[in-house]
């Protein structure tokens, strides 16, 4: 199977061509902000930048993020083959300036120069029962990653108990603490349950949802809507400079937890919401 070129194109598209759902959400936010306000000026510049990046095929944001791949592959697939193709594509994409070199050795301080290193790019593998391969890529910027956080319920200070009411409270607290630092207006991924590691993982996987897509779980759909309204009341606004748009969307997922633990993880995605999917089936290559 030919993998290298399609994965390189997946990286290029993800870094330079913002998905339609994200761009539309920013347009709606721009129209909602007060005319000529700083918030509206900021969103207009952001929209201009999105357009320019697409036309010039250059990165939307200079922080092209950590490369997080999620691969669903057929029974006869080999993980090494995907890893090899991803490393090739990451190096090539760095040479072509679709990516900034973002893999730093924490011991020596040395940047590897090609985005390849230990667990970089990170690949989540999942073998599934289909004949096709699905490769999803998220480019996760460092500024937004730094404001992600995890809560252990109950939380006395916030009076947050082990229920959805408690989840709502800690999510508001996380976005308040983030202010504009994660490049607001952000998308908020919430993971309920699991252990410390899977809780964060779940919060991040939420970002593969489409912004226009409702949560199939009615309870969570309600909470997402409430949080969306609550968070946009905070007045933090685009870039934290004030305004009506603090978040573009809230996604919540859950998984079973240990009886003694109740983790809520909050992942923050900047407005440069970079995620794309590549599907390979019967020699056909599709991007979404």
């Amino acid at each position, binding site marked *: 199977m030919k993998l290298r070129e399609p994965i390189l194109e997946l990286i290029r598209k993800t870094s330079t061509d913002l998905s339609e759902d994200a761009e539309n959400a920013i347009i709606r936010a721009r129209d909602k902000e007060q005319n000529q306000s700083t918030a509206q000026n900021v969103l207009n510049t952001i929209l201009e930048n999105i357009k320019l990046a697409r036309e010039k095929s250059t990165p939307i944001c200079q*922080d092209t993020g950590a490369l997080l791949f999620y691969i669903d592959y057929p029974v006869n697939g080999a993980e090494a083959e995907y890893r090899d193709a991803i490393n090739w594509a990451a190096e090539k994409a760095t040479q072509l*300036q679709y990516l*900034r070199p973002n893999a730093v050795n924490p011991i020596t*301080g040395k940047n590897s*120069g090609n985005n390849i290193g230990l667990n970089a790019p990170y690949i989540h593998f999942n073998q599934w029962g289909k004949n096709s391969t699905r490769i999803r890529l998220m480019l996760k910027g460092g500024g937004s990653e730094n404001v992600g956080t995890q809560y252990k319920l109950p939380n006395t200070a916030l009076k947050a108990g082990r229920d959805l009411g408690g989840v709502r409270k800690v999510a508001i607290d996380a976005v308040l603490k983030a202010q504009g630092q994660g490049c607001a207006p952000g998308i908020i991924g919430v993971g309920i349950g699991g252990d410390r590691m899977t809780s964060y993982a779940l919060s991040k996987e939420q970002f593969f949802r489409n912004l226009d897509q409702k949560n199939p779980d009615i309870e969570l759909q309600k909470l997402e809507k409430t949080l969306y309204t609550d968070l946009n009341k905070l007045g933090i606004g685009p870039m934290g400079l004030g305004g009506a748009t603090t978040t573009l969307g809230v996604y919540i997922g859950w998984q079973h937890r240990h009886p003694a633990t109740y983790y809520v993880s909050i992942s923050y995605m900047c407005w440069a919401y970079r995620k794309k999917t590549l599907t390979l089936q019967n020699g056909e290559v599709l991007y979404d």
Partner: protein
Amino acid sequence: MIKLKTPISEKEIRKLKVGDEVLLSGIIVTARDQAHKLMVEEKPDFIRDYLDGSIIYHCGPVVKKEGNGNWAFVAAGPTTSSREEPYQSDVIAEYNVRGVVGKGGMGDKTAEGLKNHGAVYFHAIGGAGTLIAERVTKVIDVFKLEEFGTPEAFWIIDVKDFPVVVTMDSNGGSLHKKILETSSEIAKNII
């Protein structure tokens, strides 16, 4: 819209107020985590003339080397400034810096430094990588590229009409502080 060109005098900088939208031109210097640490710990002289009366930009760009061997900026939005909080005030004093461009704002120590030395904090638009790179007309030089890597190197750049907003001025005003206070109050009510 106010237009400013580096080098900027203390008098000009002290006139700026929170909320002013500014177009910056002239030679400025990118510096982030490793560069700030170096400037405080070793006070290197190679950057002194470029910083005198000029501006530090918190940015780790995507760059390309052109056929003629010159560098060009491909994407160059701001990075989070709060990481430089331990160093910024000392760097401003040591190198006579008149302004800092970044995102997210900075803390009390920097606010105090801005007031004492006559400098401001400009907010650029986070994530506007391609748009801001278009305002970088020339890469003049680069220092510490090999040692620090592309994002962390000191890039000396010439900019034309780089759009920024003053969010911390030299009189102690801070939009970030204000937004934090009002949003905390709202959060208290809805939590």
